[in-house]
């Protein structure tokens, strides 16, 4: 995307520790509207912690997070969700006993407003609301090509499909900022290619801003507009894939000293 577009989220000097363990130390970066931003780094670098900070699961001890121009105090996950931040998890977190359809429907929770009483009776406006949301959900199911598993309890699905359903649930929230924690982990090449295509489509056609953590460097360099690199909780590089790839610090972090 073009470099002049506005900042959607900026992280300033964020530090996070658990007791004596420092997960993130003084990290700053920003995410621009409409870009695909990758966060990479060796295991234990603090990438997932960073996502958890952004969507309110963790509260940093220091630093500021500004989202859509507003610097926020301690934010709870459901507040983050209601402001348009959706996410997926490293180890898929789905509602295992529920069907694909229901899982994605849950993603619409915040968009539904009709009174409980009418919902119970499936009457009038509540009925129309249910239908309207169901339509959005069906569109998402079409988009992700998971029609065949609509009524299957997600616990039964293979891992790759579960990841896809999880993405669907995040999409149902119509997010402005989508956080993907290793969306391609454990997938075979074909599944990875599908997932890449969905991510690119989302970004290009719906303008969704995406921040993703990924270990597959090929994928990261192809997909992302800009990359931030963490190591041991510190930021060691930030920039376009080409810049980051050439950075000696990054090469050292990934391949070890003396390479």
């Amino acid at each position, binding site marked *: 995307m073009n470099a002049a577009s506005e900042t959607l989220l900026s992280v300033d000097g964020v530090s996070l520790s658990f007791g004596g363990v420092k997960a993130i130390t003084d990290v700053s970066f920003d995410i621009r509207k409409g870009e695909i931003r990758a966060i990479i780094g060796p295991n234990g670098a603090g990438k997932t912690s960073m996502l958890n900070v952004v969507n309110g699961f963790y509260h940093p001890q220091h630093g500021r997070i500004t989202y859509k121009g507003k610097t926020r105090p301690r934010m709870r*996950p459901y507040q*983050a969700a209601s402001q348009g931040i959706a996410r997926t998890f490293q180890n898929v977190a789905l509602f*295992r*006993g*529920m069907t694909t359809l229901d899982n994605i429907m849950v993603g619409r929770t915040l968009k539904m407003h009709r009174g*409980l009483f009418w919902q*119970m009776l499936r009457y009038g406006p509540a009925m129309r609301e249910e239908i309207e949301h169901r339509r959005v959900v069906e569109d998402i199911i079409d988009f992700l090509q998971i029609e065949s598993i609509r009524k299957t309890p997600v*616990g039964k699905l293979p891992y790759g499909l579960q990841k896809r359903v999880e993405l669907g649930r995040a999409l149902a929230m119509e997010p402005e900022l989508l956080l993907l924690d290793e969306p391609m982990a454990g997938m075979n090449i074909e599944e990875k290619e599908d997932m890449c295509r969905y991510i690119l489509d989302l970004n290009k056609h719906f303008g969704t801003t995406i921040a993703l953590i990924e270990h597959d460097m090929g994928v990261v360099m192809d997909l992302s507009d800009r990359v931030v690199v963490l190591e041991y909780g510190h930021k060691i590089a930030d920039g376009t894939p080409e810049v980051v790839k050439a950075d000696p610090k990054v090469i050292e972090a990934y391949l070890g000293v003396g390479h």
Partner: protein
Amino acid sequence: MLYNIFIDPFVQMAQMPDLLVQTLWEGLVSGVLYALIALGFVLIFKASGVFNFAQGIMVVFSALTLVGFYEKFSAYGFSGHTAAFVALILTAGVMFVLAMLIERVVLRPLVNQPDIILFMATFGITYMLIGFGEMVFGGDPKQMIASELFLPSGSVDVEMLGGMVSFQKIDIAAAVIASVMIAGLALFFQKTRIGRALRAVADSHKAALSVGISLNQIWVIVWFAAGLVALVTGIMWGARSDVSFALEIVALKALPVLVLGGLTSVPGAIVGGLIIGIGEKLGEFYWGPLLGGGIESWFAYAIALLFLLYRPQGLFGDKIIERI
């Protein structure tokens, strides 16, 4: 012997159909009430994956609170129907405050902890409520304010099948009210956005949080709903016997009901309740004498044991799916 077990009871049933109807009716009523108690458990289990050991004591506690309020009012010369209903509303308020307290003090600090920890926490709640209840209301059994709440007493005797069958009016009322309550809750769970959110929370806390479901809100709603179910159960059981801490034992009958019906199923709680209720009355009446009577107290648990061996998820429970 075999004749006594397999043939004679059925001959008796056929010979005296009026007695059979009477037994079935009694079984049906206690079945509906078991279902109501079980429903309280199912509600909380569905929304938090926790078996709420405190449901039984919540039944006792809410009933005692209701009677306690009414007694206070009477002491100031304010009694009758109005006072009873004011007490009822106040008691509902107390159950709401209790739900908020439980959420705030017990559940919130335990988010993302293993289920067994939450289960143990409900033991804590149980003993807190027993202690607090005894401190405030004393340990003596109390009379439920049934007539003040417009609950009928006496019985209807119907002549049928060559005999008299007697229906207690309170039992009829209990069956009707419980059915309405169960239907309402079933709709709430299956058809509403909050119902869907409740099921989601039960499956995964963090996923529910990430789509914008407020756990705190959901838990207050669920515990309040369970509190209201407990209150209705307390009124009904209390009207049939007394309000005392012994009711808690009755509430434990919900365990076999849940094993039978499945911990996660509202229809399961209903069907399970009816099977246990009718089963134990029929068993007691027709097969009890063979074993010297008194089988009503353990019959339900024997059925539950059989189910655990062959169908651990119950009749309607979610199949436990685990990929290896």
